[in-house]
């Protein structure tokens, strides 16, 4: 071995850093030997092959890959096998490459020097490369720090980070997920370059998947190709081979994860990339935390401002709502407040009232539109506050003409139709519908999202407020919910007040009616007594007059006298009958009740109706069968006869009398209509008053007797004028409970 050659080699080898010159140096050295095959293989992925000498053939990569760890192996060359000797270039830590030579070279100083020099060189190269990479990464970090130090919003910051990381690691894409403190789920906040990769974009629970695992363990994860885990990733929707996921940690708590997916080059992720990402994570985490805090604070401030605004609206609304008024007006105002303008502005609002006896909810009133085109009109309403608008409605008595009103009024459901209701009522707070669940309200009101809030009175459930954003599809978020909650309690109070108010009004009305009735009764009693005495005084002479007339008509032979006497007799009979009827009524005896079909009584009256000159009168009887009432037949007959008589007297030239019977709730209803001149408007209110005297022919004691009879039967009688002319008398008698029982 030539010492001089070695010195020359060392000189050449260290002249510079380029691999080409190093190879040349080795080549020169080997020329002095009999070696005709030499390769330097550098341990990289993929293997870096440098030909030094190969006189006869080229090395085939397949040969190399299979044999790289063998000290001696054979390759075919021109149909003969040659032995290749493999010198591993390595130290205790790493294998840097291999020197392949043939034929064999004695292990001499020569090879020792070669091996040592190559080891040294390759190790240095690797270190250099690492430094280069680190330098590049540091540059990225510097740039990133510069960028993020003047960020102004979290989303923007995260977008910068994902973009830089993706580029720095030459990867397919990057995702940052942050922990949502409300739902305690990891949610995607920013992503870059992942359009064609289906990462999990919905919330991730702790321990769920790789991100979830990183979250719970607080340890970074690196998935490299050709491992079990990588195969799983390939099989999954992700269709990638490798990824790195590092936790974002602030004050020892995971605030999110940073995941990078798949290198664009064939190289997989390495441990170093993971370390780089950890550095980035360390840089970004406090910024994220700070930014989140800032955002929260801003939101809080916004919320406080919004709350103050809402409070103002509610206070103002209260002034309007709390005034005593009719319940339907009030409900209209409340719902208008919920749907109007910028302040609150739901697309549609409605109210379901609850009937505790039947357990049903009934749509009562709705404000809002049913069609897309209407909403434009809605939006073009004058620019004013809700309170101003409500005042305008009040002042001008604007009516509710919402199309939604018709829709919601047709909605009625049972508690059992809508199981969620129990949950809503139990919670007593706002319920926002579930996204994917169907329910009866979504079906009936054709809506995807809605909210309900129960209206609780002092003692019981009054109903539920309903709101939705059917058209602009604004989600019903926390702001809305808080507002609704406040609104509902105010509305419930107002509705209850209003109920109380209407109860008081009703009670007043009842009192008034009762007073009037008392007056009528007193008058009836006095009149009754007077008339009773009078009737007796008259009946005696009347009996005599009729009796004598009868005798005269029988005894006389003069036909004129007979005829006149007969007339006296007939008229006396009529008067007598009238008095009899009256006296019968004036008696204080109890009525003899009997279950009978009202139609039977009416038919009897019509068939036996006795009145002079019925020639031009026709009766039309439209009956509803089976109206059983519990009445004194004779008394009701008196009433029907009175009504028929009235009708005939109203039509001196004849006409049609329409008698109709029908069922209305628990009442049998009898209507008697004529085609006469109607009832003068000044007479109408007093028509049943026995003291009321009028020249108006025919109305007198008969109607007030009828009134008394109907009252005694717990019935109702009233008169009205038809639009087509003529009068209409209506009598309502309670249906016999027996009949009801049969029906059930």
């Amino acid at each position, binding site marked *: 071995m030539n010492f001089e050659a070695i010195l020359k080699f060392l000189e050449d080898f260290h002249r510079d850093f380029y691999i080409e010159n190093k190879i040349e140096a080795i080549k020169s050295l080997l020329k002095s030997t009999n070696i005709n095959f030499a390769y330097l293989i550098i341990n990289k992925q993929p293997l870096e092959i440098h030909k030094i000498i190969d006189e006869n053939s080229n090395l085939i990569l397949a040969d190399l890959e299979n044999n790289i760890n063998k000290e001696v192996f054979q390759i075919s060359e021109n149909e003969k096998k040659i032995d290749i000797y493999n010198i591993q270039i390595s130290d205790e830590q790493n294998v840097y490459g291999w020197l392949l030579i043939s034929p064999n070279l004695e292990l001499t100083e020569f090879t020792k020097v070669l091996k040592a020099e190559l080891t040294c060189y390759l190790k240095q190269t690797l270190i250099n490369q690492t430094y280069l990479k680190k330098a590049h990464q540091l540059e990225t970090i510097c740039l990133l720090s510069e960028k993020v130090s003047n960020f102004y919003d979290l989303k923007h910051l995260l977008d910068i980070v994902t973009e830089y990381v993706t580029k720095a690691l030459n990867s397919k894409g990057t995702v940052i997920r942050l922990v949502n403190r409300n739902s305690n789920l990891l949610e995607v906040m920013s992503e870059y370059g992942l359009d064609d990769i289906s990462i999990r974009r919905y919330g991730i629970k702790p321990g769920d998947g790789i991100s979830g695992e990183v979250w719970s363990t607080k340890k970074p994860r690196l998935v490299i190709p050709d491992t079990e885990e990588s195969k799983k990733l390939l099989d999954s929707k992700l269709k990638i081979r490798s990824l790195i996921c590092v936790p974002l940690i602030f004050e020892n708590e995971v605030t999110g994860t940073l995941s990078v997916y798949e290198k664009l080059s064939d190289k997989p992720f390495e441990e170093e990339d993971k370390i780089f990402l950890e550095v980035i994570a360390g840089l970004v985490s406090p910024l994220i935390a700070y930014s989140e805090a800032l955002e929260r604070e801003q939101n809080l401030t916004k919320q406080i401002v919004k709350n103050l605004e809402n409070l103002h609206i509610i206070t103002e609304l209260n002034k309007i709502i709390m005034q005593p008024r009719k319940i339907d007006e009030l409900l209209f105002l409340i719902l208008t407040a919920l749907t109007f303008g910028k302040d609150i502005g739901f697309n549609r609002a409605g109210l379901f009232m609850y009937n505790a006896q039947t357990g049903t909810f009934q749509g009562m009133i709705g404000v809002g539109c049913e069609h897309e085109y209407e909403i434009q009109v809605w939006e073009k309403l004058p620019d004013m506050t809700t309170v101003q608008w409500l005042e305008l409605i009040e002042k001008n008595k604007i009516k509710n003409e919402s199309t939604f009103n018709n829709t919601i009024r047709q909605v009625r459901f049972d508690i059992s139709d809508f199981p969620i209701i129990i949950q809503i009522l139990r919670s007593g707070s706002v319920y926002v519908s579930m996204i994917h669940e169907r329910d009866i309200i979504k079906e009936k009101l054709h809506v995807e999202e809605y909210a309900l809030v129960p209206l609780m009175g002092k003692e019981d459930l009054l109903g539920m407020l309903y709101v939705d954003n059917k058209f602009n599809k604004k989600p019903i978020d926390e702001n809305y919910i808080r507002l609704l909650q406040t609104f509902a309690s105010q509305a419930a109070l107002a509705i209850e007040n209003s109920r109380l108010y209407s109860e008081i009004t009703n009670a007043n009305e009842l009192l008034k009616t009762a007073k009037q009735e008392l007056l009528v009764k007193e008058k009836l009693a006095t009149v009754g007594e007077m008339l009773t005495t009078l009737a007796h005084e008259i009946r005696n002479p009347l009996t005599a007059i009729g009796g004598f007339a009868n005798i005269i008509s029988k005894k006389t032979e003069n036909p004129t006298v007979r005829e006149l006497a007969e007339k006296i007799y007939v008229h006396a009979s009529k008067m007598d009958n009238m008095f009899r009827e009256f006296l019968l009524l004036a008696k204080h*005896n109890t009525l003899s009740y009997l279950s009978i079909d009202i139609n039977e009584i009416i038919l009897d009256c019509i068939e036996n109706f006795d009145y002079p000159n019925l020639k031009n009168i026709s009766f039309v009887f439209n009956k509803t069968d089976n109206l059983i009432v519990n009445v004194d037949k004779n008394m009701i007959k008196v009433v029907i006869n009175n009504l028929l008589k009235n009708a005939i007297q109203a039509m001196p030239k004849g006409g049609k009398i329409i008698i109709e019977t029908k069922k209305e709730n628990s009442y049998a209803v009898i209507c008697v209509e004529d085609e006469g001149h109607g009832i003068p408007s000044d007479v109408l209110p007093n028509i049943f008053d026995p003291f009321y005297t009028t020249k108006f022919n025919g109305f007198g004691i008969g109607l007030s007797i009828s009134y008394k009879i109907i009252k005694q039967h717990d019935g109702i009688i009233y008169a009205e004028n038809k639009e087509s002319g003529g009068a209409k008398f209506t009598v309502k008698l309670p249906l016999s409970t027996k009949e009801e029982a049969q029906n059930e």
Partner: protein
Amino acid sequence: MSKRILIADDEENIRTLYKIELEEAGYIVDLASNGKEAVDKVKENIPDLIILDIKMPVMDGIEALHTIRQIPECKNIPIILFTAYGEYQQDFTTWASDAYIVKSHDMTELKQTIEQLLKK
């Protein structure tokens, strides 16, 4: 032989009317203008049937009825109460009368009742 009927009524016209009608029907008719007179007439000559108006001066029909019933011979004589009032209809039996008739110029009801009572 014709039956004898006593009619007591304070109204002269009524008395006249019934006298004519009942005599026509073949009865012998006595008249009294109040309850007391009726009782006296009954004591004098016991009739086959008595018709009493309720509302009469001096002695009313009810009192007369009770007094007449106390005369032993009159215990079983048919007595008809007779009035313009309608309201007592349900109570007539407690007054121990045999029938109760509301006054009317139509004599049919009265005549039928008399005929029935006299047949017994």
